C-alpha cells in the first residue's frame, strides 16, 4: 500500500484523511502491524481504484 500511496505522491496523513482514519492506522497497515477492518479495506480499495485483493495479500 505504501507503493500505491507513493505513486500518487500522497502522505500517510493524506490517505488517512481521505479514508477517515488516523495517520497512525495507515502507518500500522503499511508496516504490517495491523489489519484493517472490512469497511476500511473497502474505502482504501475505492481510494486507490483497485480491488481489495490487489492491495492486500493473504499471507496464510
Amino acid at each position, binding site marked *: 500500500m505504501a507503493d500505491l500511496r507513493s505513486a500518487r505522491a500522497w502522505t500517510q496523513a493524506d490517505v*488517512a484523511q*481521505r479514508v477517515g*482514519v488516523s495517520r497512525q492506522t495507515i502507518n500500522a497497515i503499511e508496516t504490517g502491524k495491523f489489519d484493517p477492518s472490512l469497511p476500511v479495506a473497502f474505502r482504501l480499495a475505492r481510494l486507490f481504484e483497485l480491488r481489495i485483493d490487489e492491495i492486500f495479500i493473504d499471507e496464510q
Partner: protein
Amino acid sequence: MDAPQDAVSYRAETRATGGLVAWTLAWTATLALARFGPGFWGDLHPVVTWAAVVANLVVGVGWIVAFTRFLRALDDLQRKIVQDALAIALGAGWVVGFGYVVADAAGLVPVEVEVAALPALMGVVFLAAFVIGKIRYR
C-alpha cells in the same frame, strides 16, 4: 452530497470525546461530593449523603454509556489499543484482587489495604497499557 468520510469520522469522534470528557468531569464531581460532602453537612443529614451516593452511581452509568459511544467512534486501530488496554487492566484487577483475597485469608497480608486500591490499580494499569499500545503502533 454526502460529507467526506474523514469529516464524518472526525465529527463523530470529536462529539464522543467531548461527551466522555463531560461525563468524566461530572462523575468526578459527584464522587467528590459523596466523599467529602458529609464532612460539611455532617451525620445530621444521612438522606443527603445517600442522595449524593446515588447521584454518583447514576452519573457513573452515564459515564459508562459515554465510554461505549467513545469506543465506537474511534477508528479501528485506536479502538484496538483501548480494548487491549482494558483487557490487561481487567486481568490485572482480577489476578491481583483475588490474589489478595487468598493471601489475606491465609493470613499472609500484614497490612490492611483500602478497597479503593483495586480500582486505582486498574486505572494505572490501563493508562500504562494504553501508552504502551500507542508507542507500539507508532
